[in-house]
């Protein structure tokens, strides 16, 4: 009964919880409002496509801080819809917009130009200030942060330099200096007398990708010039990349006349510039054809770079950069951070594994999302955070955001707090040797004794720049491991260190000294650092390839390589490769022979760091705690089982001695039997209801006295087996109780030492022999083998030599006998046998019967269940009849059988016999059917009846004695006998 309630409570809890959850989230929807924002200066008006995301519950009474969320270069505001929603869910008002020249916005792309895209931000901030749902710090000064990744990140930083109303900045994968990012030259010192370093080499793979991806869509999807209500008044909005240089350049007074001069939107002529402004377009074409940065292009790109302006940033800034970003590497973020920090503004850098595309809003990285959320929560939400500029980081107590640089060790997956866990390590100076090694020893030239011409290596740059080495692909970032290290023979030289014994953390920007010479106008090489694993696999550190370009030759240059954040594992080697080509960059088309001089200046300087593992002290404690827990639980389990065992011990002395008085010491009987002693079996109100609703046993109450052989009779499905199962604790009664020898039976109760059972057939381990099965069975009860009286039991089984064969070779009859023997082990005082003669041949049945009767006479109590009435009649002293789970009758066999007092006589003339007997018998009734006469309910002696019939000349074929159990049973269970006619 208790069991039923188990399901209700947890189910109710789940249902209620689910409803509550539904109710809480219902109605909590983010409201999205598409907008069109007028922006731009007087002569360059632009309509921007924007959307406002309002968090549930935001209103004039409950204003929220706002976030301006930008997008990347290859998409528009729809790409950040997901992140905008989740920020809105977190309680911020989010305003996303498509930058000029993107998506459904008007204008052309000027790449975050100060007078254009950046001024647009001011218009957006104005819009937010006017909204009642946005919290304002002061009139027209909303509490707003700006966030974005890649293009959006750079925009955010530039906006921060120009718009003082911004309260926080989050820039993911942003740039510091576009010209050095897009066309780097690693040279920092071109050598004496060379002047400034040569112009950088263009990252053609990236620039090509970005430019053409932007240019092409512009042709197909111009802004909805026809749909905008003010199209007529806003001609530039209808621009869709037409013959640009002519009409766009002026960008002045676009009167209606100009508007009509333009073909309607949709009928556009293709242009290589797409939606870029002409300045950008020209700059790109120039550097794409030259392969190196031009001064004009450099000037344009620098105007769109935060470099040099960052001291004006007052909003706390979070910079997240991918460690394998090939477009904007870690040095860009570091330069941004240094400049902002120099101005005294709080700044935090988070370097994460991954390439350019993996560091973005909605890219799926949980750590980045958490970082951003934490930063915004801290600087926007904190009530009374006051003036962000100058607020001390340590002041608000959250140490996690106080650190200015946190990076991820991609090898150990560990997050390293550069301030707390990292200290500057030794600087490694590795010399480049002519035989391709990087050694810490003295420079190679010392080995050569003679001090003659310093060694050099020659590499060749192929005509047309092909074949070119493949090191990286734009956007793949961390997937770079999949690329084979494909350096072309003859085009590169490599220098490798020895394998190290211990891990080494490389952190910082390495520098390299080299002497370059070429037989042409310039020497152009590409320098890479790789991690070489013992099995030959290489990994390009930070996916970085540094172009080195020198025009005044020979050039003893000093090259600064990109910032490293890498753990070189023990057993790994470091390889420095200098190659003449790289597919990601612009390569020389003229065939050139480049000489790499390896004098004593040819040194690679590696900055290293010491990183302490996180809280080593906690580790032994944890181990200790874990071990203690385990030991405690084992002890507990051991103690529990030990207590049980002790309870079993005293029982052993009891068995084998039938004359023992019950109850034994320590227990009081629950009830006394008819003769004053505790009945071996007492069922009271026993009931069993199975989970599917079937009632197997219903209110069964009976007692079996000592020495009785009780037969449990009933048709199939009467509940006999269920009752017997409950008797030995196999099944749990739903109502009532079972008491054996006065003890309420529980599974595994110690009183079961006095019980032997055979329930629903034999069950043995097939691979073991019969003897082993019996032995193990007995000893599983924790009793000694000697107490089992095994020889006597084996005698009963009568299996002979087969006892030592595996049980799976036995026939059913043999198994049955073995099962009976198993029940008899230890000569139990109570035997519970379910259909013991099933499968036995008649002689064995007879032997069994005799045994049971004998045991009963010796004082054992036996409960036998059967549906073979004749058998029960012969072996049992008492009978209990069950039907449909209920007890129909109980009592000594003789009494029960005697109740029907029905005699059946087969004659040769039934009718005559009937008439004769009907006259003679005055109590009861006589009926005949065919040749059989039935005398029911009469006390007349059978012998008298027979005599009567014989005397009358009627021949008798058979007489069925009175007191047949079969009749009694059938009448009790309500089934008709064969003798009656309907």
């Amino acid at each position, binding site marked *: 009964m208790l069991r039923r309630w188990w399901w209700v409570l947890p189910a109710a809890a789940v249902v209620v919880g689910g409803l509550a959850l539904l109710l809480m989230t219902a109605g909590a929807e983010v409201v999205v409002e598409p907008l069109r924002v007028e922006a731009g200066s007087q002569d360059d008006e632009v309509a921007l496509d924007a959307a406002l995301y309002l968090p549930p519950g935001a209103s004039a009474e409950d204003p929220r801080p706002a976030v301006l969320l930008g997008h990347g270069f290859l998409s528009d505001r729809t790409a950040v819809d997901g992140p905008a929603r989740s920020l809105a869910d977190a309680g911020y008002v989010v305003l996303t917009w498509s930058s000029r020249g993107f998506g459904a916005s008007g204008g052309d792309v000027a790449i975050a130009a100060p007078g254009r895209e950046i001024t647009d931000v001011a218009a957006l901030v104005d819009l937010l200030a006017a909204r009642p749902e946005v919290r304002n710090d002061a009139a027209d000064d909303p509490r707003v942060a700006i966030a974005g990744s890649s293009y959006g990140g750079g925009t955010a930083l530039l906006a921060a330099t120009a718009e003082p109303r911004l309260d926080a900045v989050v820039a993911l994968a942003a740039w510091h200096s576009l010209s050095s990012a897009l066309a780097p030259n690693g040279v920092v010192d071109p050598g004496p007398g060379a002047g400034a370093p040569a112009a950088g080499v263009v990252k053609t793979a990236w620039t090509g990708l970005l430019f053409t991806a932007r240019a092409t869509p512009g042709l197909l999807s111009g802004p909805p010039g026809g749909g905008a209500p003010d199209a007529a008044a806003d001609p530039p909005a209808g621009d869709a990349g037409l013959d640009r240089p002519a009409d766009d350049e002026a960008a002045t007074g676009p009167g209606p006349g100009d508007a009509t001069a333009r073909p309607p939107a949709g009928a556009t002529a293709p242009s290589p510039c797409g939606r870029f402004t002409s300045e950008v377009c020209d700059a790109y074409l120039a550097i794409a054809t030259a392969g190196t940065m031009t001064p004009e292009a450099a000037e344009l790109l620098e105007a769109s770079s935060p470099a040099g302006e960052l001291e004006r940033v007052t909003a706390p800034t979070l910079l997240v950069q991918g460690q394998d970003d090939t477009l904007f590497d870690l040095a860009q973020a570091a330069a941004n951070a240094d400049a902002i920090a120099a101005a005294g503004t709080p700044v935090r850098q988070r370097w994460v594994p991954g390439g350019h595309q993996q560091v973005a809003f909605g890219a799926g990285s*949980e750590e980045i999302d958490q970082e951003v959320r934490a930063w915004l929560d801290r600087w926007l939400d904190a009530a009374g955070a006051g003036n962000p500029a100058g607020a001390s980081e340590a002041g608000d107590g959250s140490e996690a955001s106080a650190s200015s640089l946190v990076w991820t060790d*991609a*090898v*150990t997956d560990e997050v390293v707090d550069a301030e707390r866990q990292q200290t500057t390590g030794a600087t490694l100076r590795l010399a480049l040797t002519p035989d391709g090694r990087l050694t810490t020893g003295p420079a190679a030239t010392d080995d050569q004794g003679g001090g003659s011409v310093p060694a050099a290596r020659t590499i060749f740059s192929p005509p047309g720049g092909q074949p070119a080495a493949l090191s990286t692909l734009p956007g793949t970032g961390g997937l770079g491991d999949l690329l084979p290290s494909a350096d072309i023979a003859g085009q590169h030289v490599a220098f490798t260190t020895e394998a190290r*014994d*211990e891990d080494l953390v490389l952190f910082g920007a390495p520098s390299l000294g080299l002497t370059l010479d070429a037989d042409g106008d310039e020497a152009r090489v590409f320098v890479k650092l790789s*991690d070489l*694993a*013992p*099995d*030959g*696999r*290489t*990994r390009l550190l930070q996916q970085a390839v540094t172009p080195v370009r020198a025009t005044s030759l020979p050039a003893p240059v000093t090259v600064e390589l990109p910032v490293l954040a890498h*753990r070189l594992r*023990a*057993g*790994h080697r470091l390889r420095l490769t200098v190659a003449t080509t790289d597919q990601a960059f612009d390569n020389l088309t003229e065939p050139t022979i480049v000489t790499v001089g390896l004098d004593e200046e040819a040194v690679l300087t590696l900055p290293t760091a010491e990183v302490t*593992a*996180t809280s080593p002290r906690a*580790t032994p404690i*944890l*181990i200790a*705690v*874990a071990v203690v*827990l*385990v030991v405690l639980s084992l002890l507990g389990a051991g103690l*529990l*089982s030990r207590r*049980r065992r002790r309870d*079993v011990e005293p029982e052993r002395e009891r068995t084998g001695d039938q004359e023992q008085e019950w109850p034994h010491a320590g227990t009081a009987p629950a009830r006394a039997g008819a003769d004053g002693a505790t009945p071996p079996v007492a069922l009271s109100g026993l009931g069993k209801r*199975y989970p599917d609703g079937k009632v197997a046993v219903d209110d069964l109450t009976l007692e079996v006295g000592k020495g009785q052989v009780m037969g449990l009779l009933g048709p199939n499905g009467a509940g006999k087996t269920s009752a017997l*199962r409950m008797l*030995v*604790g*196999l*099944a*749990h009664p739903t109502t009532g109780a079972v008491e054996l020898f006065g003890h309420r039976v529980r*599974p*595994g*109760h110690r*009183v*079961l030492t006095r*019980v032997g*059972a055979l*329930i*629903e057939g*034999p*069950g*043995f*381990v*097939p*691979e*073991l022999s019969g003897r082993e099965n019996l032995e*193990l*069975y007995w000893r*599983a*009860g*924790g009793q000694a083998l000697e107490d089992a009286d095994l020889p006597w039991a084996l005698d009963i089984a009568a299996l002979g030599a087969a006892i030592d064969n595996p049980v799976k070779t036995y026939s059913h009859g043999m198994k049955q006998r073995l099962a009976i023997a*198993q029940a008899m082990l230890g000569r139990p005082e109570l035997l519970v046998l379910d259909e013991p003669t099933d499968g036995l041949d008649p002689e064995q049945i007879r032997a069994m019967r005799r045994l049971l009767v004998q045991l009963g006479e010796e004082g054992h109590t036996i409960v036998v269940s059967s549906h073979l009435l004749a058998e029960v009649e012969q072996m049992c002293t008492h009978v209990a009849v069950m039907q449909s789970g209920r007890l129909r009758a109980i009592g000594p066999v003789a009494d029960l059988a005697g109740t029907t007092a029905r005699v059946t006589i087969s004659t040769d003339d039934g009718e005559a016999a009937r008439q004769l007997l009907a006259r003679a018998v005055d109590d009861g009734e006589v009926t005949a059917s065919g040749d059989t006469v039935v005398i029911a309910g009469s006390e007349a002696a059978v012998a008298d009846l027979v005599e009567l019939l014989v005397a009358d000349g009627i021949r008798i074929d058979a007489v069925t004695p009175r007191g047949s159990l079969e009749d009694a049973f059938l009448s009790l269970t309500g089934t008709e006998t064969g003798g009656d006619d309907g």
Partner: protein
Amino acid sequence: MRVELRRQLRRRRTAGGLLGIAAVPVLLAVAFALAGNGGGPGDGDGGGGDPTGLLFSLATSSGPNFALMATAATAPFLLLAVVALFTGDAVSSEASWGSLRYLLTRPVSRRRLLARKFAVGALLSVLAAILVPVSGLLVGTLAYGWSDVQTPLGVLTATQTLWRLGIVVAYLAWSAAWVAAVAFAWSTTTDSSVGAVAGTIVLVIVVQILDAITALGTLRTYLPVHELSAWIGLLAPTPRYGDLTRGIVLQVPYLLGGLGFAVWWFERKDILS
């Protein structure tokens, strides 16, 4: 308890399982010998990601290396499968033979019966876990000699490796605790030991797959197999215990949960088989 042990040890599948797992290093040795000395299946180290792949290429350098490789090869799946076999079979096989009900008519509490069965299953599992490196050591030493060990994290002497290997085995055996608990709990609910064992093995595979899906983020760190390869840290010259402790503690809730369920269910159950 010894009774139960005898009961189980005599079964063919026990011997089969133990022999089978001990034979794996032998098979691997044959495979390596046939593949030539090219360094085995180089599922190499993609730049510091997965050092177990590295162990494969280092396997032929010495006997203890071979044992390490054999351990690494069997740890993620085979060992767990064998553990599932030994523990998932315990109760349900008795139920399928019909002998469970007789065991339960003995004066032994059900809980105690379960404890004994689980203890024996666990013991056999530990035995299986030990057999792999032992057999690997034997075969490896015969084939490749006894010398210093090159690991993905450094170089160790052979004797050092033995100690470490001992701890590794203990850790792997413990890391299978959740499998044992799940298989055992399953076996208390069903008559079919095939169902319990196979079901548990399928669950092991599914959990391993889930563990490989990085999109699950921090949820993965609560999966019981997440720290399965943390023992690699023990191979470093100065052993790294960080993930190891987490792995140890990670098993506890699953173990307690599985066993708790098994006990709770079994005590309340009507034995109808």
